[in-house]
């Protein structure tokens, strides 16, 4: 029995290593190996979730505490400082804001963790040879499972704000899946960029923050500020978060443009991200 007999395709008993600069690896063996090692990505993500917060007093309670504090901060920001408390539909606005914020923080967390996974995985990269795409994908998996308790928190807020329950809410995960693919694609793009241009780490938080304000999170998609109206539909998060909030908060089926737009951006980001990542990943070790 040999060490790597399960992935003969990717790891044949005869290897030839030759120089190369760019270009895609052979896709079939690559994806076969990726699939065979999915257990590795899952295990890494599971152990990371277990290891996170073990040193803190609240431990895994932070998974619920984080979204609650986040909702509080933005409640203070939008309702008290901006003086919007007296407006009609304040409860709906708050529920909408929470739904948007939680989804946005899920997206940005998955993207940022995916981006950091390659540069942060230094030692593993230097000493093991495996399809590198497992690293950002594992980070996205971690973000997804850390997001699940947030959904329960949202449900609590939804009921507390006396919003009705609709059957359409059950369709909201469709947008969540699209958002996940979009986040994975963006994460892979930034992960590869970060190897060449380390300053990305410092730019990314500002980029994320600006993106938050440009997306229909703190305001309803229909009430977009006039300044943004012209180009808002080009923001990938506009259909993704817009459709999510429509289903989850209002129980309204989103227009077909939102479905199509969300699917388009999710597939585009994932395909472009994975191709870009794969074409670069063999160079990562030389530059770490």
């Amino acid at each position, binding site marked *: 029995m040999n060490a790597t007999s399960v992935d003969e395709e990717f790891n044949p008993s005869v290897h030839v290593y030759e120089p190369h600069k760019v270009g895609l690896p052979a896709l079939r063996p690559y994806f076969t190996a990726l699939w065979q090692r999915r257990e590795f990505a899952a295990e890494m993500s599971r152990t990371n979730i277990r*290891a996170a917060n073990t040193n803190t007093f609240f431990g895994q309670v932070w998974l619920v505490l984080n979204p609650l504090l986040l909702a509080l901060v933005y409640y203070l920001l939008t309702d008290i400082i901006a003086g919007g408390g007296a407006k009609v539909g304040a409860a709906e606005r708050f529920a909408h804001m929470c739904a948007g914020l939680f989804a946005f923080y899920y997206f940005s967390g998955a993207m940022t963790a995916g981006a950091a996974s390659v540069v942060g995985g230094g030692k593993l990269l230097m000493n093991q040879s495996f399809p590198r795409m497992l690293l950002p994908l594992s980070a996205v998996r971690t973000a997804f499972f850390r997001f699940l308790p947030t959904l329960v928190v949202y449900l609590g807020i939804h009921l507390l704000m006396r919003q009705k329950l609709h059957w359409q809410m059950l369709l909201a995960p469709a947008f969540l899946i699209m958002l996940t693919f979009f986040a994975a694609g963006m994460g892979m793009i930034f992960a590869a960029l970060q190897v060449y241009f380390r300053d990305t780490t410092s730019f990314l938080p500002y980029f994320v923050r600006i993106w938050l304000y440009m997306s229909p999170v703190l305001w309803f998609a229909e009430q977009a500020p006039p300044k943004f109206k012209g180009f808002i539909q080009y923001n990938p998060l506009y259909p993704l978060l817009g459709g999510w909030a429509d289903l989850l908060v209002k129980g309204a089926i989103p227009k077909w443009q939102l479905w199509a737009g969300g699917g388009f951006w999710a597939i585009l980001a994932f395909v472009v991200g994975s191709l870009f990542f794969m074409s670069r990943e063999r160079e990562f070790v030389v530059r770490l």
Partner: protein
Amino acid sequence: MSVSETEKKPMQKTTSNVPAVKVQDVSITYRTTFERVPTFKSALVRFGRGERAVREVKAVQNVSFDVNHGTTIGIIGANGAGKSTLMRAVAGILPPTSGRIEVHGRVSTLLSLGVGFNAALSGKENVILGGLAAGLSRKVIEERYEEISEFAELGDFMEMPMRTYSSGMFSRLAFSVAVHMDPDILLIDEALSAGDASFKSKAAAKMSELVTNSRTMFLVSHAMSSVREMCNDCIWLHKGKLMMRGEPDEVIQAYTKFLQVGEAESVSLEDL
């Protein structure tokens, strides 16, 4: 993966005279950003000129050699000679900048201490994670886990986070993982330096057992005595260049002479 596969053949381990590892005119260059004093001013000046502070480090230059199956080859050389880089290239982790490496057989690596291990996780979790990354199935890993933990003799420490380990414990675990991966070609990079005397002799016995089963082994070491004892072939690298290849005794003699350190003195140094 740093593999560009141009040919695939069924494995022919013992029947042919194909060498286990064939290194042909390989050079490896690292690109790294480097500045002696990284100041804001120099960064601005650099930015203004449109330059980037990239240094090229030529870690391995035009190295060629063949290694036959069943050989234990020692690789010696001063710090920064490119030994570890060469090992990474043979393992397929680093792509060569030029040249060609052919490897016949499956490779298991044991590259410098505590590698690939996440200190926040327990020894057991690290073993499972490392095995999964190497492409083993969970079932196989669980079977081998018993052997691994028995060989490492870490007892209850297997369930504790690895940040609580001493460096000797790290090297015990790393070594037992590498040898239990059942490799055709084993790469060992200074992994034994932190182990104690009893573990070193146990490890040496395990290694000679692997070699008698016609496994090939690369041993990177600064301990000349272990190279002399275990290896039947030797390579001396200096600043990325192949200086000498031959019988361990001759190569070690030439190397120690080159370092201008007497034979006796270098032996006493490694025992510190």
